[in-house]
């Protein structure tokens, strides 16, 4: 199949960007979207042109590096699928695709499709951890945890921090990311001692990084490659109110 691409090219953070048009012939339907970009980059290199910069690492859908907005949708058209797990069979021969980076003031473009997601790391530094010496693994079942809570914590912990929630949000809000990071700790006993401080600090850091306010469009849940529920955002709000009223 032949794919026509309009790819966002931007030389650096402060340089103006523009769309460049490329044609990639002989695309196999079994290629992943990133492999199609590998082919494009080989083609560009042979032509003596600068290859398109894009982030990728595991290519197994679990690292959260590959971030592309494809035809207006973060990670492309398939639900619960990271860009690396999106295959060209999801497209038709002769399709024209627009490929853009995550667009948010808090995620400045470094080059082409690569954005700086350090803002997420700084939110994690503000409280996305437990300050305990873990030591050896505790004996199984020595700390009873409700099965439903354990499963739910695992669902939130599945967040790979890719940033698709921010990219797809009409307001560029990071609420789903922060909600997921809070919920997976607040559902478990280890998360309890710092629960109030954690929610206040992470929520305030989210604002400082310049993410927008949530308007409950729920677009984040729809594009999340891990299908994380906006119930995490509701839980974050309940915890925030409790923390606001708490004495500590």
């Amino acid at each position, binding site marked *: 199949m032949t794919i026509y691409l*309009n790819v*966002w090219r931007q030389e650096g953070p402060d340089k103006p960007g523009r*769309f460049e048009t490329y044609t990639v012939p002989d695309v196999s339907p079994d290629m992943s979207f990133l492999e199609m970009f590998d082919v494009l980059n080989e083609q560009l290199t042979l032509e003596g042109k600068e290859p398109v910069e894009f982030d990728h690492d595991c290519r197994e859908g679990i690292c959260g590096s590959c971030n592309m*907005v494809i*035809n*207006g*949708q*973060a990670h492309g*058209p398939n*639900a619960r699928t990271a860009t690396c797990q999106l295959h060209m069979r999801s497209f038709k021969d002769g399709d024209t695709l*627009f490929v*853009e980076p995550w*667009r*948010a*003031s*808090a995620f400045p473009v470094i080059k082409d499709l690569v954005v700086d997601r350090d803002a997420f790391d700084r939110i994690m*530094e503000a*409280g996305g*951890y437990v*300050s305990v010496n873990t030591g050896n693994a505790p004996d199984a079942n020595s700390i009873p945890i409700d099965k439903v809570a354990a499963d739910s914590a695992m669902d939130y912990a599945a967040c790979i921090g890719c940033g698709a929630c921010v990219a797809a949000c*009409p*307001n*560029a*809000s990071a609420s789903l990311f922060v909600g997921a990071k809070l919920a997976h700790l607040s559902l478990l006993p280890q998360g309890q001692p*710092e629960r*109030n*401080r954690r929610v*206040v*600090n992470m*929520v*305030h850091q*989210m*604002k400082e990084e*310049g*993410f*927008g*306010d*949530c*308007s*409950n*469009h*729920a*677009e984040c*849940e*729809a*594009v999340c490659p891990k299908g994380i*529920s*906006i*119930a995490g*955002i*509701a*839980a*974050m*709000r*309940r915890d*925030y*109110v409790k923390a*606001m*009223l708490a004495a*500590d």
Partner: protein
Amino acid sequence: MSTQVREKQPLWRQLFTSQIGKKLLTGLTGLGLTLFVIVHMAGNLSYFAGNEAYNAYAHKLLSLGPLLYIAELGLLAFFVFHIVLGVNIYLGKRKAREQGYKRYKTAGGQSKQSLSSRSMIVTGVILGVFLVLHLVSFKFGAYYEAAESIDGKPVRDLARLLNEKFQSPLYAFGYSGVMVLLALHLRHGIWSAFQSLGATNPRLTPLIYTLGALVGLLIAVGFFILPLWIFFTGGNA
């Protein structure tokens, strides 16, 4: 790494400036205003029981005196907070994405993005402007005295004002059109308020969303049935 709260601000600052506090207040004031429009709509429907019933209802409200003023001040505060926070959230969103997408498409599925959710600022601003015009037309509009008095006190003939105003297609259809926008605003607004208050979960959300949309629609119908009825039938004699 310190785990101290770096920004334990006073409660009121957290409410007004934090991203969660702002949503809480927007949701709470929104729900309060929704209750107000439901009561307002129910009051309007008393017109269908006759001009006298309608005038008596309005008279009863007015004779509350200081209580009415307190309620009006409360309402004004709700409107001001709701509008200021809504505009603030809209402006913040523009700052949070300075460079927009060339292409943008909702993923569907779990998304609740819709014409309603995307146009909250537009429907909200129109409703705000409408509110002012509406107060000028009716509350502060022409004063007619009704033929009959209640407890020896003169009664304002608001029904006559209604009957006159809604003869005009501009008033009848303008009012009805704005009520359709109110339905759109509430379709996203009601469910969104519950989500902002943290009062949702995956089982409840579809129910709250559907009920919210339905309530919005019923409120709008309850409002625009009156001007359209007056326009098309000439209203109560």
